[in-house]
């Protein structure tokens, strides 16, 4: 694992001791709001200063606007939830025109999360977002490939490689590929992404799930199935980060079920440099800030100076 500590600098409001270097970018702390759980920052920005976050991964963008799935789109599960929002978003151009300027007012890293129907669509978005100077592009490969009969890009090493190459060819900012856990060998997919040029990896996206209302004998979600997130998936995320960190040599944004600093530390020990917080914000809007403070407490309490001191420091 290569961690570059040279570029660590103190930024305006951040605490130097929490900063992380991630494929050449300095994050003021390791906590990133997870894509799709934070909109474009406007709503949670009413609760706290978004500059408190290391980064924000915005709602998944597509080339054209999308209406998403019918409701119900969410269902609660034990220690988690299912969602089938269906990538509702205003499209990449509207994001750049209407949302990015507002987000840019905050001193935090902006990560553009993108989804496409074809590899070419991913490439076009990567070019537009590079022109708009987002900090990092996060490639969501958990969406159906229209040309491959709807098979998810993220389940095939060849398709992940194809998308990654196309994005890498068009992007002038670092490219991070977001892996799906719904595969039999996540390390194999990770290697395919890195060999195709991924500068970083993020994981995990949601696990495919389903719930049924036994009174009506119907699925709760209009889409029938949806993605499982929240505390319930933490052990799956830890395992995936562990397996991927051992297989590749790029930094990892780990996420899945993080609710507090201790959960984040688990993912970091397994190999994550940054940690995403998603569903936990729904329970507590301040969850990302509390996770950040919890990481700091763990570092201070255990004789570490930097978050990178614990990345991959698993005693196994």
């Amino acid at each position: 694992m290569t961690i570059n500590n040279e570029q660590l600098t103190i930024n305006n409001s951040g605490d130097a001791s929490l900063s992380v270097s991630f494929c050449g970018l300095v994050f003021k702390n390791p906590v990133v709001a997870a894509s799709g759980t934070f909109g474009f920052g406007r709503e949670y920005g009413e609760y706290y200063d978004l500059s408190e976050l290391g980064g924000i991964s915005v709602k998944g963008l597509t080339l054209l606007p999308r209406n998403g799935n019918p409701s119900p789109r969410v269902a609660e599960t034990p220690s988690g939830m299912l969602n089938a929002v269906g990538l509702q978003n205003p499209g990449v151009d509207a994001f750049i025109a209407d949302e990015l300027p507002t987000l840019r007012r905050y001193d935090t890293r902006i990560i553009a999360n993108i989804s496409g129907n074809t590899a070419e669509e991913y490439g076009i978005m990567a070019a537009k977002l590079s022109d708009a100077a987002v900090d990092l592009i996060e490639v969501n490969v958990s969406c159906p490939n229209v040309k491959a009969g709807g098979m998810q890009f993220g389940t095939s090493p060849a398709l992940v490689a194809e998308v990654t190459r196309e994005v890498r060819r068009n992007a002038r900012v670092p490219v991070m590929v977001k892996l799906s856990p719904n595969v039999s060998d996540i390390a194999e997919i990770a290697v395919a992404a890195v060999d195709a040029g991924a500068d970083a990896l993020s994981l995990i996206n949601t696990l495919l799930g389903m719930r049924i209302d036994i009174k009506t004998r119907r699925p709760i979600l209009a889409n029938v199935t949806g993605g499982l997130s929240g505390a319930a998936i933490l052990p799956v995320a830890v395992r995936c980060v562990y397996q991927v960190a051992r297989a590749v040599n790029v930094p990892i944004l780990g996420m899945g079920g993080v609710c507090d600093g201790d959960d984040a530390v688990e993912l970091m020990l397994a190999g994550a440099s940054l940690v995403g917080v998603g569903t936990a914000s729904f329970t507590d809007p301040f969850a990302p800030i509390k996770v950040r403070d919890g990481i700091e407490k763990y570092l201070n309490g255990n004789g570490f100076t930097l978050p990178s001191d614990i990345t991959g420091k698993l005693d196994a």
Partner: protein
Amino acid sequence: MTGFSTDCRIVYSEELRDGVHALTFEAVGLTPAQPGQFVHIKCGGGDTTRVLRRPISVADYFEGDAANNVPPEITVVFEVRGDGTQWLAERREDNTLDVLGALGHGFEVPTDGQILLVGGGLGVAPLMYVANANPLRCNAILGFRTAELILLSGEFDRLCRRVVIATDDGSYGERGTVAEPVRAALKSEQYAAVFACGPRPMLRSVAAIAAELNVPCQVSLEERMACGVGACLGCAVETKNGIRRVCRDGPVFDAQEVVW
């Protein structure tokens, strides 16, 4: 800033009828509630298995008196439907609640003229606050399945000029749905607005009658929610102005905007 408190002290709790409860809690740290808004309540205390908050309408609000240290209060009225509301029903005076709110876009009250409140079942709850905030401007038509399920009728009697109750089985008041009493009221008197809350089929029929008789109508919609603040797009509803969020753009929408 936006309202959030993990420490809202309950000052009053009551079982209104079998399975329906009222709770009043101090709303210190929350934003002042407008009629039609809701609060997002964490149910389960330290139990972390229930990750989603429960949206419950504000059924009444008291501003308090900051100068004299009298805290504001919010009242909610809810039915036990599952685990979350069961937990809530077991809360008592001096227990505390973790509350986000008040949230959402409420009823837009016209500056003058009469308001017709149309409620079905638990949908009467948010209308009570409208009635309380607009004394002597409201008439109410309240629908329930049977006489045993009638809720808050005494409060509406006190706050409204006239109250009509309809029961599906005719066991109390008018027999049938609220549709005919609504039509009769709108035909016999001038109204500046109809505010409706209840099951979707009731809202649809009230919206149709109001449209036909040219009275502006606002409806309060329900959808399953996650964040409750507009960030997750979990609570989408289709409208003539595109996909909108029940938690942020609603729960109250202009009835003409809704795709029924």
